[in-house]
């Protein structure tokens, strides 16, 4: 169903890695908020609602949003929190603008790395009777998905290696100064260390606004929300066919239907490559390429920077992995692409882009967001 009021992204601050420890988490939120507001050309006084997202376990706090109320300007404002996923903060912020009850929304997500082991914290998010004893963390779940896909799609390993190479090439162009930050991750068979990147501290903020606000403030280069979908699979991996992505298929249907568009209309895509196998599954679920065309598209450069449909011009999660923020960062990257503000990795003439935000064990949560240079007609 189309939204009653069409929100636009008018500001983004993507901080895929924040090196050093000279800024506290509160200061990181504050800095990121200011950058997004500056990008939108407004001040905090223009913000009438906020949605934040973070992970209590990563933050080491019982209710992480509490600290944010001061750091992101939440005092005396309507602030909510979606700890299920960073992308859910975007979804809720968009719904709030679309409801007509809010003219603007500030969306902020962050992901620190101060905890001694993010892997152990992720394990504490598993079912205590079955999965926790495996032991399971998110990378292990991605590896189970990779193994399932290798079994179901012959040649998937070579294609995963091609995805890895593509995203590393893109990342070197997009964020050349990130070399050395989380350059290699861990291996979990069949995922190799080269296919992943270690966690880094990062943050992202976005500003959403109503058409009235965009008009009244003459906001420069808005990215209009053309369609949005989100869906979640069951937590129990044994109940899922990990070689498919039904929640993403559902999310994509919602997004394309709302936008009145098809995959043929997409100029640029950002996908959550928590593993290259996850990116392969997203090609299919978003109708960017059916399974039997993956190899051809990767070989003929379709998804490369100069190809018909560049995928992950930012270098994706493989280039920078602030774990909890990676979904919202994908959306912000696409917003900047259609705003013409993507910097070194700008796709010339990009008018419509799609972001796929996935998170959780074997990408349990999925979202698809289509943004366009023009508002819907």
């Amino acid at each position: 169903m189309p939204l009653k009021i069409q929100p636009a992204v008018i500001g983004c601050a993507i901080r895929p890695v924040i090196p050093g420890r000279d800024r506290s988490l509160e200061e990181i939120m504050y800095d990121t908020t200011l950058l997004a507001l500056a990008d939108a050309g407004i001040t905090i006084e223009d913000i009438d609602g906020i949605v934040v997202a973070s992970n209590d376990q990563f933050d080491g706090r019982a209710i992480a949003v509490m600290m944010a109320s001061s750091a992101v300007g939440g005092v005396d404002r309507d602030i909510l929190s979606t700890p299920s996923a960073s992308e859910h903060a975007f979804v809720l912020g968009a719904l709030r603008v679309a409801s007509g009850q809010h003219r603007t929304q500030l969306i902020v997500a962050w992901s620190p790395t101060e905890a001694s082991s993010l892997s152990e914290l992720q394990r504490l998010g598993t079912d205590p009777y079955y999965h926790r004893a495996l032991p399971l963390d998110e990378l292990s779940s991605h590896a189970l998905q990779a193994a399932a896909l290798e079994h179901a799609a012959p040649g998937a390993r070579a294609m995963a290696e091609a995805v890895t190479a593509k995203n590393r090439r893109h990342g070197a162009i997009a964020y050349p100064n990130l070399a050395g930050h989380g350059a290699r991750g861990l291996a979990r068979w069949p995922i190799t260390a080269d296919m992943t990147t270690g966690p880094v501290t990062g943050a992202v903020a976005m500003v959403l606004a109503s058409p009235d606000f965009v008009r009244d403030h003459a906001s420069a280069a808005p990215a209009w929300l053309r369609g949005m979908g989100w869906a979640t699979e069951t937590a129990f991996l044994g109940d899922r066919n990990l070689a498919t992505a039904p929640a993403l298929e559902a999310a994509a249907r919602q997004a394309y239907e709302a936008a009145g568009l098809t995959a043929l209309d997409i100029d640029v895509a950002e996908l959550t490559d928590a593993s290259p196998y996850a990116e392969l599954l997203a090609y299919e679920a978003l109708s960017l390429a059916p399974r039997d065309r993956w190899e051809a598209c990767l070989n003929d450069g379709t998804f490369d920077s100069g190809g018909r449909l560049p995928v992950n011009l930012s270098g994706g999660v493989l280039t920078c992995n602030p774990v909890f923020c990676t979904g919202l960062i994908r959306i912000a990257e696409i917003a900047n692409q259609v705003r013409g503000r993507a910097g070194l990795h700008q796709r010339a003439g990009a008018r419509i882009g799609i972001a796929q935000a996935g998170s959780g064990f074997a990408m349990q949560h999925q979202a698809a967001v289509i943004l366009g240079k023009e508002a819907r007609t």
Partner: protein
Amino acid sequence: MSDRVGIIGIGQSMFRSRRDDASYPDLVREAVVLAMADARLELDAVDAVVYSLSPDAMIGIGNAERLAVDAVGGRNKRFMRLATGGTTGISSVAAAYYHVASGACDVVLTAGADKVGECGDSQTVLNKLWDTAYERALPLGTISMLAMSAVRYMKNHGMTQEDMARVVVKNRRHASLNPHAHLRKIVTIDDVMESRYISWPIKLLDCCPQSSGGAAMVLASEQYIRDNHLDAVWITGLAHCAETYWIGDRMGNNPTAEHADASALRSAFERSYKMAGITDPPKQVHVAELYSPFSNTEFHVIDAAGLCAPGASVAMMREGQFELGGWLPVNCSGGSLCTNAISVTSMARVAETALQVWGRAGAHQAKGVKVGIANGNGGDHQFFGAMVIEA
């Protein structure tokens, strides 16, 4: 008026200290089944689920909402979780409202559960709310936090410990009529006064219980409700507002917000009233379910709801004006003072207000009420949500 959002189904557990018979997903499922039956809909009709859970540590599983996706019928559907501490329940209803009001969905389920009674010691978990460097070490808990509020309210408005006990007596009497309530034993002022101190001036019977149970609500668009000939009550006003995280900034000589009061809740109610077109709350509001897990806080919440002048709630409580049968019944269900499953405690406030204006509250029904209000408070008395519900 075709853009309204209605409440069409409500489900609540019989809240208890322990529910050894039910796993965490079982508890959520229990509430969902009740709410869907109340709405006379199957889960296939639900477009989206908003999950109500906070904090994770109370369940002992990080992001436990993931494990309950099937329990709420959410597989491959729109799903997200809200968390704002004790406000989470009303925040989740608000998020469900936005799903419908935006045009994205016709029918939205919001649900959650908690096992506070089985978490060991909730105050140990809740101490982790505070900043690691400054306030956590005091050590603070939600009881000591609100004891400081009580002391300031006593000084500013003349509240006594007997006044606090009157709130307990009233709410326990109300809870005795509500089969879903956790603490249903009627008590006297003497019982309260003779109970042991937990954090002066708050005594054991001034405190909420640690409750286990679930709650769920179904919201729908006005068009869907009319097309399917469903019964509903309507959310006509809603807003949230936050105060500073730092308790120290709410006390001292120049506080940013007075810790005795709930200034951000006042703002949330004012915004909700404006949206609902309510200009004179004492005349236009008929019933209230106000989140007050400790007896002293009911006074400042009544004040913040604009039902009386600041501090006047104390004298009005002495006169019995907030009793069932009184001028404006407050917490007819017994409120969070008698039942507090944190993740859904403020959803229960919304649900009970809806039942009141619907005329379906059973033995604790107030007479002739058509406009009700509800609220939730969360964090370190920091996040506030308010809602207006009308028949």
